[in-house]
């Protein structure tokens, strides 16, 4: 193999950029939908031309939570694997493009169905609301496409391991593979549900659907989905940020161990989204709550590693006192500042997650705007700000341009606007959610009920925050377009950190995929077998479909 270049191969760069383009187009359209939603909800406007609030809501969820995230992640992981393992071999490279084409066909099909108002079932598409079969087929293609992209990465990794026998794989690539393994295992649930339940039912080949089973399969997927968003952000925190701040990776083995734990504990936990539901016994709900909380351990490890890395690098630069190192962090560098704000926001975001997953506290907040506020902190701030921060160097790196001082300044302003906008929007959502305002609901006063009237000031605050966020999105678009097409030519670094000398050798067991996938499968079987058998044995007659929009 030729000597590893520090620049991503041009051919691989094009593949990666193709994903980023689709991802950022989705951000723009999704953000327009989001802005309009906040105006409708607060009663400021009514939508023209027969556009429905719930149609916008469906588009917003699909475009931002599924399309932007998945395209960005696949593009970022392909680029990082190419950077750390070398140019993609032919087959994995072709699988990358094939995956892109299938995913895009699916995205276009589903988007058309949403625009035609044939799929206004929100991105969770709970049965027995029944969309057009093409809505579900589009989603299936989207998931299958992402699998093909994942197979490309697996193949590349497999060849690399064969060529480099006995060597430890690069940390970035290990983490990328873990992310795609997690995605593959998680999406099996939703794929089974869509292919064997939703598609035959929506075509009318079968009359009814088992609602509880479909919800269980959805949430088997729905919770690891959030870790699929989070892990690539963690890759940037673990591998990229140390290089940007001039430090070293605190510990290679702890980083790998935390990713192994995420694979194990992010999947057998879906019941914590179904805590208030009939037909699942409180015992199995509690078992999954316990498993849910296990994922706090790798999160604590991550927090420790990151702040240890910040402190060590600050002290190396001569920082003194307990907190002197804080001043040594490169606050003016958008590549650091944006993801760092994401990390900070993860502290309240993670705390909110612990509240949501707790048996009894969940009853206070379930399906209220609190939950919407929660995931606007997690995915729409922690993950999104980190992805933006990655884009500021990744896009120019891939297009052979540089991040100028001017764009860096704009990127910092973008980060501040985003944080301020989210403070108002998510803060108001959390608060009014505690008062009982439901999520996913258009403007309403429930016949001027005093409780509902009391929510309106908070809904107005949400619209103010949403407006600030929309301005931030426009600024983001300007930066992204500039970096992709207009920034001066040059070489922008793809930062990959080195492991600190003091860190110990990584045990080979951490790279034993058979072992970890087997343990993961055992935990899934433990958490799901009995309750699912119970669901099948005690299932009521199924439900026919309803199109209530």
């Amino acid at each position: 193999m030729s000597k590893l270049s520090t620049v991503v191969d041009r051919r691989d760069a094009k593949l990666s950029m193709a994903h980023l383009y689709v991802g950022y187009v989705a951000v723009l359209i999704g953000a327009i939908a989001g802005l309009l939603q906040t105006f409708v909800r607060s009663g400021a406007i009514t939508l023209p031309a027969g556009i429905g609030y719930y149609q916008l809501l469906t588009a917003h969820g699909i475009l931002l939570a599924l399309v932007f995230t998945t395209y960005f992640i696949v593009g970022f992981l392909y680029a990082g694997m190419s950077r750390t393992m070398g140019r993609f071999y032919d087959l994995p490279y072709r699988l990358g493009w094939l995956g892109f084409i299938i995913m895009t066909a699916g995205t276009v099909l589903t988007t058309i169905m949403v625009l035609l108002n044939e799929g206004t079932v929100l991105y969770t598409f709970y049965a027995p609301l029944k969309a057009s079969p093409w809505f579900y087929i589009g989603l299936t293609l989207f998931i299958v496409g992402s699998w093909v992209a994942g197979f490309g990465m697996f193949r590349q990794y497999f060849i690399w391991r064969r060529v480099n026998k006995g060597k430890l794989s690069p940390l970035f690539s290990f983490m990328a593979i873990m992310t795609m393994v997690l995605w593959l295992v998680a999406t099996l649930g939703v794929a089974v549900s869509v292919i064997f339940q939703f598609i035959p039912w929506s075509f009318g080949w079968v009359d009814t659907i088992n609602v509880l089973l479909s919800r269980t399969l959805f949430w088997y997927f729905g919770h690891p989905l959030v870790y699929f968003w989070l892990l690539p952000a963690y890759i940037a925190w673990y591998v990229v940020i140390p290089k940007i701040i001039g430090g070293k990776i605190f510990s290679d083995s702890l980083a790998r161990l935390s990713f192994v734990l995420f694979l194990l504990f992010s999947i057998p936990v879906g019941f914590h989204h179904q805590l208030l539901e009939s037909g699942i016994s409180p015992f199995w709900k509690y078992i999954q709550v316990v498993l849910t909380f296990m994922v706090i351990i790798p999160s604590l490890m991550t927090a420790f590693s990151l702040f240890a890395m910040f402190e060590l690098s600050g002290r190396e630069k001569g920082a003194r006192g307990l907190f002197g190192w804080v001043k040594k962090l490169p606050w003016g560098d958008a590549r650091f500042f944006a993801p760092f704000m994401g990390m900070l926001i993860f502290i309240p975001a993670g705390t909110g997650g612990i509240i949501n997953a707790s048996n009894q506290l969940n009853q206070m907040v379930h399906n209220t705007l609190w939950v919407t506020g929660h995931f606007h902190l997690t995915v729409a701030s922690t993950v999104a700000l980190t992805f933006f921060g990655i884009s500021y160097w990744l896009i120019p790196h891939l297009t052979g341009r540089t991040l100028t001082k001017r764009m860096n300044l704009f990127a910092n302003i973008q980060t501040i606007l985003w944080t301020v906008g989210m403070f108002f929007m998510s803060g108001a959502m959390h608060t009014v959610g505690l008062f009982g305002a439901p999520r996913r609901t258009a403007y309403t006063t429930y016949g001027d009920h005093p409780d509902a009237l009391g929510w309106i000031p908070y809904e107005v605050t949400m619209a103010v925050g949403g407006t600030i966020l929309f301005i931030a999105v426009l600024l983001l678009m300007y930066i992204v377009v500039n970096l992709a097409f207009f920034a001066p030519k040059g070489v922008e670094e793809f930062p990959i950190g080195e492991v600190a000398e003091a860190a110990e050798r990584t045990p080979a067991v951490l790279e034993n995929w058979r072992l970890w996938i087997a343990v993961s499968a055992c935990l899934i079987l433990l958490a799901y077998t009995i309750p699912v058998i119970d669901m099948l044995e005690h299932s009521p007659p199924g439900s026919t479909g309803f199109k209530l929009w």
Partner: protein
Amino acid sequence: MHLHKFEKLWLIVGSGALVVFLLIIGINAFAMGHTPPSDNSTLDPKQVDQTAPFDQPGLKKIGENEYEAVIVAQAFTFNTGGDLKIPKGAKVHFKVTSKDVVHGFQIPKTNVNMMITPGHVNTLTHTFNEAGNYLILCNEYCGVGHQAMGVTIEVTP
């Protein structure tokens, strides 16, 4: 694998807090009876109007200041079989099912919050210790009129 001394401490304290937290939730659920609403009974979602007790929705007095409220959720209302009016301090057992899609059942300012899935019954008990007009609303998207899906319950002083 070697862990830094501070990291060990951090993980021990963190995991210890986690264990305590889970114990509290578990004891609260199973020893104190605060398990989430998880009714196991089912019915045919197409036969709700013919299935007891949902063939006669409404409020029934079943004891000293204790009531059962049988409610059918359907797009876009709750069929309560008439006005819901109870005195302060009343204990109400809500028994709810759905005739069509998934609905939510939530009463702001209380802990009443549960999912109503078609084919299943869900139940929850609440004691109204304060007088007032309470809102019962649907908190799961159920279609174009979802935001209108709400009724009230009057708790008299």
